């Protein structure tokens, strides 16, 4: 371990290390952040929810969006059909600009 030689070095170190605690910092105050719940019951996983969730988490990091991802049980809808492209749309349209993404929510509903 190289020694810390200046305050600036210490601050740079902090910036670099912050990502390791990022998840804990965010969950300390989850109510103030966007939360995305991915239905990961057997049906969801079979339909590819795990890959989509991983993709979304990477994309959210890339876009520097502070989002808490959690997995939940079955939401009762085995549709929604979010794939990687749809996931990107949800992040860029809905999360960033508050625009609804067409075709993801069943037609009769505005929200779930």
């Amino acid at each position, binding site marked *: *371990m*190289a*020694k*810390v*030689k*200046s*305050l600036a070095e*210490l*601050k740079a*170190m*902090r910036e670099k*290390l*912050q990502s*390791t*605690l990022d*998840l*804990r910092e*965010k*969950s*300390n105050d*989850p109510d103030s952040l966007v939360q995305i719940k991915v239905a*990961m*019951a057997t049906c969801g996983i079979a339909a590819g929810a795990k890959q989509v969730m991983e993709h979304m988490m990477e994309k959210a990091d890339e876009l520097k969006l502070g989002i*808490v*991802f*959690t*997995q*939940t*049980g079955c939401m009762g809808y085995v549709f929604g059909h979010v794939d990687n492209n749809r996931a990107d749309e949800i992040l860029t349209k809905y999360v960033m600009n508050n625009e609804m993404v067409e075709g993801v929510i069943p037609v009769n509903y505005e929200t779930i």
Partner: protein
Amino acid sequence: MHVLVCGGTGCQASASAQIIENFQRILAEKGLQNEVQVVRTGCFGFCEKGPIVKIMPDNTFYTQVKPEDVEKIINEHIIKGRKVTDLLYLDPENKEHVSDSKHMGFYRKQLRIALRNCGFINPENIDECISRGGYEALGKCLSEMTPQQVIDEVTKSGLRGRGGAGFPTGVKWGLCAKNKCDEMYVICNADEGDPGAFMDRSIMEGDPHSIVEAMAICGYAIGATHGLVYIRAEYPLAIHRLQVAIAQAREYGLLGKDIIPAGYPPSASRHRPGPRIRPAR
């Protein structure tokens, strides 16, 4: 996902070490060891309901967890995303289970200052401390402030001793700084003699670096070159964690001779071997 398991004295007495071992073993069996990080933290402050296990990011607070509950938490919560209701805190008034500690009566009104890192970081990992701003105050004092400015700032802050007399810390430091002698010591009295009090132990076990940093700041302000922490032998975990913290701080060059600043002041006491621990026997 992070699993925080309390590693304070209270929870350790009710098998939290076994809980951590079970988490690590079962997660490894399921191939989840890289996705879920198990962290031994300091005290959450709710020892009565220990051992405490906190799951993040959904901030689920499990109470009185037994080693044999671990498999259920992994299978239900971590894998399937379903909380284990039986292990959630039961509100004594409305008899409802509370999942997030923020909504528990006990925590709702708390604003943690000295204990902000307890139950949040791994106290034996200096990186986690630094990522929450640890040692930056020391860095600032050493590189941007004179000892007198540090003393003035502490005086202005209104910080006072909690020993009963409420003596203003800045005044104390100012008096010490005036007293010139060959060798000065900062002594941290961590004996915690008051019956039934465990807050000092909580800090030492949960955020030991904050004590090391504070002592170094005090040393700089008053011109001391050595530090001593006086701890009772009944606090073996606190002694261990402080020793780890001191060793890590030395390794990082945050404690010892010629630390951090090149700047200010040019020659004043930049010679800090740092605290040593003296357990009372």
